[in-house]
C-alpha cells in the first residue's frame, strides 16, 4: 500500500474574520452590472478563524479514525435543521464524535457545525466555487484529484487576500479515483463527515467511498438531468421517468447504488451548467463566433428550448442541501428559472458580451456529416427541467437570470481573453458553404 500524504497547500495559518456579503441587488427591470467577485448570501457563523480551517502541516494517512472521547459533541448552536438531521440519522444515544483539527499548540475547541468534507474533484469548475463557499462556512475541505490541474487558482475578480485565505485552508488528497483500493484506504484513514461527488460518472467509482466511510453523514452527488427519458411533455420533474439507456446511465446507476446502500444521500441534477471557468464549451461556443463576427449556425428551426444554470447558483444549491434533513434521499433539478430557445440563447450571449445582434443561420444537420465533431453544443431537442422542488423544499432559488449570468461569465472569463477550447470553425464553414434556409 502506498502511503499518500495529505498536505495543506499552504501551511501558513491565517486568521481572517471577514464576512462575505452579497452585493448584488436585483432590480425589477433590465440588466444590472455583473458582480465581479465571488460572493455569497449565506450568513456566516461568527467563529474564530483558526478553528477547523487551519490545516495540519503533514499527515500520514494510515491511522484509522477513532471516536475521541474529548471531542465536542454536536452543540446546541446548530441550526435546528441540522440537529434534526443528526438526531434522526444517529439516534439520541450516539452523538457524533469528531476530531477537531487544530493548529499545533492551540487550545481552541470549536463547537460548531463545521464538518470535515471531501470533494471528489473540485479543481476545475463547480468545485472551485463550491469549495470556496464551504471554506467560508468554516468547514474543513479536502479536494481529491489527480493533481493535473492546479489545486487552487485565483479567480478573476477575487482579491489577493481572499485567495490567500482560501488557499491556506483548502486541503488536497492526491490520487486517482479509479484506483478503488487507494480510494477506499485513503478515505478510511482520513474519515470524512460528508462527501461531495462532483466528478463521478459510474457507480463503481462510488462504492469504495461508501465502503471507506461507514459513518458518512451525507453523500451529495452531482448527477444530471440527462437521465430523464425524452418526453413530449416538459418540463422534466423529479418524478419523471428516467432512461436507463441514456448516455448518463452511470449517473442513474450511481443514484440507485446510493439508494440501495442506505446511506444518507442527496442528488442534484443540473441541466446545462455555465459560468466563468466552464470547460464545456456552452457559452464559449457562442462567444467565439460573436467575437469573430461570424454567423451562428443553429440546427433546424432554432426554436428548440434548452436551459442554462449558473455554476454559482449550483454551488449554492450544493450548500443548501448540506446537513439538510429535507434533502435526505431526494433528487433535485437545479438550473435557471427560465428556459430559452437556441436562437434566443445566441441573442442573449450577444447581449451579455456587448456584441451586436448576430446573424443566425439555420441548417438541416441531416445534410451534413461532421464526423466526430460537434457542430452545436446542445442536444437537438427540447430539454429543460423544473426547479420548483428545490425552490419549494430547500428555499433555494437561482439568482442569475440568463443575460446577467452570461454577462458574469463573459466579464470574468471569455471577455478577459480566457477560454478552455480554442475556436474551431471548421463545421461552421462546412455549413455556411452549403446552407439551406429552412422553414422556421
Amino acid at each position, binding site marked *: 500500500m502506498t502511503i499518500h500524504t495529505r498536505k495543506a497547500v499552504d501551511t501558513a495559518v491565517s486568521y481572517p474574520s471577514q464576512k462575505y456579503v452579497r452585493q448584488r441587488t436585483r432590480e425589477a427591470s433590465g440588466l444590472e452590472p455583473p458582480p465581479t467577485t465571488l460572493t455569497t448570501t449565506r450568513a456566516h457563523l461568527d467563529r474564530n478563524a483558526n478553528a477547523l480551517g487551519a490545516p495540519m502541516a503533514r499527515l500520514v494517512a494510515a491511522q484509522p479514525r477513532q471516536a475521541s472521547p474529548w471531542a465536542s459533541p454536536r452543540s446546541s448552536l446548530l441550526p435546528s435543521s441540522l440537529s434534526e438531521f443528526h438526531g434522526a440519522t444517529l439516534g439520541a444515544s450516539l452523538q457524533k464524535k469528531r476530531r477537531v483539527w487544530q493548529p499545533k499548540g492551540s487550545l481552541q475547541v470549536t463547537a460548531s457545525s463545521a464538518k470535515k468534507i471531501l470533494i471528489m474533484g473540485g479543481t476545475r469548475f463547480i468545485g472551485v466555487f463550491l469549495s470556496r463557499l464551504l471554506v467560508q462556512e468554516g468547514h474543513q475541505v479536502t479536494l481529491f484529484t489527480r493533481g493535473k490541474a492546479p489545486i487552487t487558482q485565483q479567480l478573476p475578480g477575487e482579491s489577493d487576500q481572499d485567495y490567500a485565505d482560501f488557499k491556506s485552508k483548502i486541503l488536497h488528497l492526491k490520487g486517482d479515483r479509479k484506483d478503488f483500493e487507494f480510494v477506499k484506504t485513503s478515505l478510511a484513514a482520513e474519515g470524512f463527515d460528508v462527501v461531495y461527488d462532483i466528478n463521478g460518472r459510474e457507480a463503481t467509482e462510488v462504492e469504495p467511498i461508501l465502503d471507506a466511510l461507514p459513518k458518512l453523514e451525507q453523500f451529495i452527488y452531482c448527477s444530471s438531468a440527462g437521465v430523464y*427519458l425524452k*418526453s413530449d411533455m416538459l418540463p422534466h420533474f*423529479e418524478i419523471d421517468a428516467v432512461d436507463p439507456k441514456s448516455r448518463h446511465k452511470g449517473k442513474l446507476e450511481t443514484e440507485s447504488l446510493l439508494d440501495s446502500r442506505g446511506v444518507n444521500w442527496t442528488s442534484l441534477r443540473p441541466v446545462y451548467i455555465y459560468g466563468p471557468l466552464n470547460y464545456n464549451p456552452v457559452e464559449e461556443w457562442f462567444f467565439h463566433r460573436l467575437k469573430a463576427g461570424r454567423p451562428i449556425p443553429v440546427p433546424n428551426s432554432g426554436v428548440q428550448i434548452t436551459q442554462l444554470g449558473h455554476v454559482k447558483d449550483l454551488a449554492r444549491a450544493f450548500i443548501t442541501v448540506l446537513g439538510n*434533513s*429535507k434533502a435526505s434521499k431526494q433528487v433535485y433539478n437545479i438550473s435557471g428559472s427560465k428556459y430559452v430557445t437556441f436562437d434566443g440563447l445566441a441573442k442573449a450571449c450577444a447581449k451579455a458580451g456587448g456584441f451586436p445582434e448576430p446573424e443566425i443561420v439555420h441548417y438541416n444537420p441531416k445534410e451534413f456529416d461532421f464526423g466526430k465533431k460537434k457542430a452545436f453544443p446542445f442536444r437537438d431537442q427540447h430539454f429543460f427541467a423544473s426547479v*420548483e422542488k428545490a425552490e*419549494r423544499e430547500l428555499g433555494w432559488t437561482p439568482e442569475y437570470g440568463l443575460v446577467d449570468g452570461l454577462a458574469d461569465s463573459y466579464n470574468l472569463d471569455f471577455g478577459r481573453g480566457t477560454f478552455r477550447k480554442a475556436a474551431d470553425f471548421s463545421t461552421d464553414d462546412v455549413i455556411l458553404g452549403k446552407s439551406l434556409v429552412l422553414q422556421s
Partner: protein
Amino acid sequence: MAVASASTAAALPSLHYASRSLPHRTLRLLPSIPYTSHSTVTRLSSRRLPNRYSSPSSPSSFSVKAAAASASKKSVLIVNTNSGGHAVIGFYFAQELLGSGHEVTVLTVGDEGSDKMKKPPFTRFSELVSSGGKTLWGDPAEVGDIVGKNKFDVVLDNNGKDLDTVKPVADWAKSAGVEQFLYISSAGIYKTSDEIPHVEGDLVKEDASHVAVEKYIAGLSFGSWAVFRPQYMIGSGNNKDCEEWFFDRIVRNRPVPLPGSGMQLTNISHVRDLSSMLSLAVENSDAANGKIFNCVSDRAVTFDGLAKLCAQAAGRELKIIHYDPKAVGIDAKKAFPFRNMHFYAEPRAAKQILGWTSTTNLPEDLKERYDEYVKIGRDKKEMKFDIDDKILESLKVAVTV
C-alpha cells in the same frame, strides 16, 4: 408513512419521509403512467416507494394557509361568456363550488333561448340547477338589476375582454360590497420572448385590452382581487374545439398538417385544473389577494407531441405534415387551433401561493375526450377539410394515409 425513529426526540420527523409530513393529497396520476410509448423503459423509481417523490407541486407548509373564515360558505356570482374557449370555465367552477357547499349563481350573457345555448356547456346547465345553483341570463352591464337584492361575497367575471364590458360589472360589485373580485384574463397578453415560460410578473402587451381590465380591477380596492390568465383547455362541456381538431383528422385517416416545425410548445390544461385554482383562490382569499395567476397546467406539450397523444388516445395511426403557412399562402390562425409560436405559461404563482397542484394528465384526459368524441358520433360526421386540402395540395401529399 414511516414511523419516526424511536431514538430521536419525539418531535422529529422520520428522516426518510421528512418531507412527507404533509396532509394526504390526491396524488397526481402522472407518476404511474409513462408519457411515451416506450414500453421497455424500466422506471428506476419502480424500486423506490411511490411516496418518495412528492408530486411536482405538493404544497409545503408555508404556502397553504387558509385565510381566516375562508372555510365558510360563500355566495358566488359567475358572469359567464356565452361562447368561446372560456365558456366551460364557469361551468366547472360552478360545479366545484356547489360541490363544496357554496351558493352559486351563473349569469350568462344574452338570452336563455338563443342558439348559443344549444351548445355545451350550456346544454348541461340543468346540472347546475339540480345541484342547487341558479342560472340567469342577461346583459352584464345590467347585472345589478338582474341579480336584484341578492348579495354576493365573490364575483367572477368570466366574460369581458375589455374595459367596456367588465367595468359595469366591477363597478357594480364594488358598490354592492362584494368582498372578492376575480377576473379571467388571458395568457395571450404576455409579451413574447425568447425566454420561456411566461411567468407571473413578466411584461405584458400594454395595448392588450385585458391589461386595461386587470389594472382597473386592481385599482378598485376590493377586499380581495385576483386575475387568472388561462391558455387552452380540454374537458367535457367545452364550447370550442381543441383536441377535436386532431381527432377529426385522425379518425378519418387524414394527415395532420402542423405549421412550422411542430416543436412549438403550448399548454393544454384540463378545465378542472382551472376550476380548482379558482376554488382555492375563493377559499384562500387573503393569500390570493392582489395576485396574478397563470391558469394553466404545469406541463408544456409540443404540437407534434399533442398530435401523437391524440392518435394514441384514439388508438390510430398518425401522419404529421409540417408546412410553412406563408409559403402555402394560408392564414395559420384559420388553419390551426393554436398560436403558431411557443406559447407556454407556467402556473408558478398558484403553486407557491395557493398550494395548488395540477391534475391534467393528457394521455388519460385525451382518452376520455376521445371516448366522448365517439359517443356523440362526431367520428362519423361528414366534414370538409378545405384548408387542409389546400395545404396538402401545395405540398403534393396524398390524402389517404
